[in-house]
């Protein structure tokens, strides 16, 4: 039980410590990952001994938060811990020149602990919380170099794509909890009937968003804007894996109709994104498209009703894809670019590194005895055995051929060309992380039988599937090595390079209308703003008019009265001479006039 808490809290506490101390971020990050790894291995050995751990935390009323260590979650937790530890080892070298190590390692640890919570979650509420946390931390990590052009938009795009698909998960979880009356995942898996079909489809939507399935595959390639260790972690064991893990965990309740839809979505994705990878001009974007393609294969396996095959491929793919990305990161450091045109001959600079990269590429293509062979074989066998064998098996085989073709294309580009060797800082750390992951990619196949026994399931042996898978892989590799990818695609090339945008794709159908709505909202707001301004201006004018009338009208009247009075007074005072003679003369003349008047009136 304490092991579960340790697996989650070790990276989290180290993150807090890094943020508080602000020094030695790499050491603390490695420490956190190592402790988490030890806890994960402890959980796994407990699972082998038949001990299932459970940790119940107080949560909502009647819905406690559960963390469970079943064999499945223990395997996934160990996987996450191993991959993240090795990627962090690599990151120590990769980020040597970067000035913001504190932020980088803290966010990486948040990512790891969120992913541990997600895989170990035993109830839907905790799973939702972890699901959101990995969305947030992946947004932060993709946007890590936020000052570079295009990075912010890539991060926002990734966040919005996954967030909008997350709505499916929310609705599904609400339906499941309302239906089963409990938030425990194991309990809700007993759902059946129409509810199961509906929730299965909603969960598929959520998984499509997180695992970058067609038609939501676009964000993953743009997410390459983040640092390479982030891509490696994102594509192998964490963010993108979350969608597949969700479907693998809920597979027992999915009815056959939903399974068929899942299989078809996965099949379409594996073909479409495989073609995109074939036409891609950038190594990291090629690998990103390949990730979507491989998760499509996993969905095919889930759709064929054998989630175990999907799990095995998830595990193998995690090791393979992270080593491929880490190798690509070294090439990037050596040439300062990830465009395939710039990387020509980069493999020849460092043959040992190229050997590791090639091993991982061959493992992904499915060459025995590398790990990818076993998992791919399991998927093809599962698709052949399913009731919809015709559809699913052809998708799976097409995916395998395409995998071989694009990996061979990448290897061919890296090997053919001039060598330009350049010293790389931190190569030791990067090589150490890479070597660990390549080793895993090579030998993980040997661990598959024990995982099968751990989960009490077994995969059917099928010679036909092995022959088909191997010939598809070899055929694909041969095609890809000898024929340039562009020519292989033929008329599909321009379409593939646009990411198979149907009639302009999401940009036309979703982004532009959304932008148009935003623009009209802005216009409306501007109109309201202007109206408010006009009202304000009118009031001001009113005030000015009132002031004017006050100044000129009332004040003017009063002042003119005052002025008139003063003038009248001035005029009146000139009457007063102050000279006695004049006053007296006036008096005499006046009196004389009165006499005369009186005399005239009286006597005439």
């Amino acid at each position, binding site marked *: 039980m304490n092991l579960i808490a340790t697996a989650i809290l070790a990276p989290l506490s180290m993150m807090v410590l890094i943020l508080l101390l602000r020094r030695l971020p790499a050491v603390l990050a490695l420490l956190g990952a190592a402790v988490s790894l030890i806890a994960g291995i402890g959980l796994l050995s407990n699972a082998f001994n038949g001990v299932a751990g459970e940790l119940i935390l107080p949560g909502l009323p009647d819905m406690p938060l559960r963390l469970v260590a079943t064999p499945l979650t223990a395997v996934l937790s160990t996987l996450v811990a191993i991959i993240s530890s090795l990627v962090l080892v690599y990151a120590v070298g990769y980020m040597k020149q970067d000035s913001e190590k504190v932020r980088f390692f803290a966010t990486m640890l948040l990512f790891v602990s969120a992913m541990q919570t997600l895989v170990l979650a035993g109830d839907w509420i905790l799973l939702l919380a972890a699901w959101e946390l990995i969305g947030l931390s992946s947004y932060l990590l993709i946007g890590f170099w936020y000052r570079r052009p295009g990075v912010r938009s890539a991060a926002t795009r990734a966040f919005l794509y996954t967030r909008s698909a997350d709505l499916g998960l929310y609705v599904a979880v609400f339906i499941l909890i309302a239906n089963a009356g409990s938030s425990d995942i194991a309990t809700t898996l007993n759902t059946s009937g129409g509810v199961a079909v509906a929730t299965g489809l909603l969960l598929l939507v959520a998984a499509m968003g997180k695992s970058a399935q067609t038609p939501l595959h676009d964000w993953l390639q743009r997410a390459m804007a983040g640092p390479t260790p982030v891509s490696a972690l994102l594509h192998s064991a964490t963010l993108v894996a979350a969608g597949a893990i969700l479907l693998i965990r809920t597979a027992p309740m999915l009815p056959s109709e939903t399974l068929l839809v899942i299989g078809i979505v996965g099949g379409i994705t594996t073909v479409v994104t495989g073609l995109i990878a074939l036409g891609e001009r950038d190594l990291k974007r090629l690998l990103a498209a390949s990730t979507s393609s491989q998760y499509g294969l996993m969905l095919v396996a889930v759709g064929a009703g054998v989630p175990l095959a999907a799990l095995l491929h998830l595990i193998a793919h995690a090791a393979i894809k992270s080593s491929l990305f880490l190798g690509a990161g070294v090439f990037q450091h050596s040439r300062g670019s990830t465009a395939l045109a710039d990387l020509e001959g980069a493999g020849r600079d460092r043959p040992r590194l190229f050997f590791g990269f090639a091993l991982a590429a061959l493992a992904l293509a499915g060459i025995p005895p590398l790990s990818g062979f076993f998992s791919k074989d399991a998927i093809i066998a599962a698709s052949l055995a399913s009731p919809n064998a015709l559809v699913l098996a052809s998708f799976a085989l097409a995916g395998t051929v395409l995998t071989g073709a694009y990996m061979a294309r990448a290897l061919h580009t890296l090997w053919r060309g001039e060598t330009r060797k350049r010293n790389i800082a931190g190569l030791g750390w990067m090589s150490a992380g890479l070597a660990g992951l390549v080793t895993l990619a090579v030998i993980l196949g040997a661990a598959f039988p024990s995982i099968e026994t751990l989960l009490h399931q077994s995969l059917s042996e099928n010679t036909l599937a092995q022959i088909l898978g191997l010939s598809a892989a070899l055929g694909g590799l041969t095609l890809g090595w000898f024929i340039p990818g562009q020519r292989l695609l033929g008329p599909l090339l321009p379409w593939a390079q646009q990411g198979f945008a149907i009639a302009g794709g999401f940009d036309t159908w979703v982004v532009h209308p959304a932008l148009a709505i935003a623009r009209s909202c802005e216009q409306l707001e501007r109109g309201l703003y202007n109206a408010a301004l006009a009202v304000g201006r009118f009031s001001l004018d009113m005030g000015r008019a009132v002031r004017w009338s006050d100044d000129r009208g009332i004040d003017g009247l009063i002042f003119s009265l005052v002025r008139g009075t003063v003038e009248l007074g001035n005029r*009146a*005072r000139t009457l*007063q*001479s*102050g*000279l*006695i*003679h004049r006053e*007296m*003369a006036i008096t*005499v003349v006046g009196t004389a006039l009165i006499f005369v008047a009186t005399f005239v009136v009286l006597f005439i």
Partner: protein
Amino acid sequence: MSIELLLALITGAALFGVGVYGALSQTNLVMIMMGVELMLAGAMVNLVAFWRYLHPDNPAGQMFVLIVMTVMAVEMAVGFGVAIARFRAKGSVEMEEAAELKG
């Protein structure tokens, strides 16, 4: 009308006319007051003449003259008081110079 009354009235009118002339023509306050005295004297001659020749039995006429004489004395007292005050303050009683109260 008797000839005596007429003579008396003419005398009074002449006195009044001299007084008016004096009051208007002089600039000295004392001389102006002299003119005013003459005008009052002319008026009193008229009053006495009217009493003596028209209503000798009625004492009201005599009384009226006496009151006028009293008023004349009082007026003189006030007038000379003002003149003395003015002289003390300004050193002159020339009325051409006394325009301080002009508005």
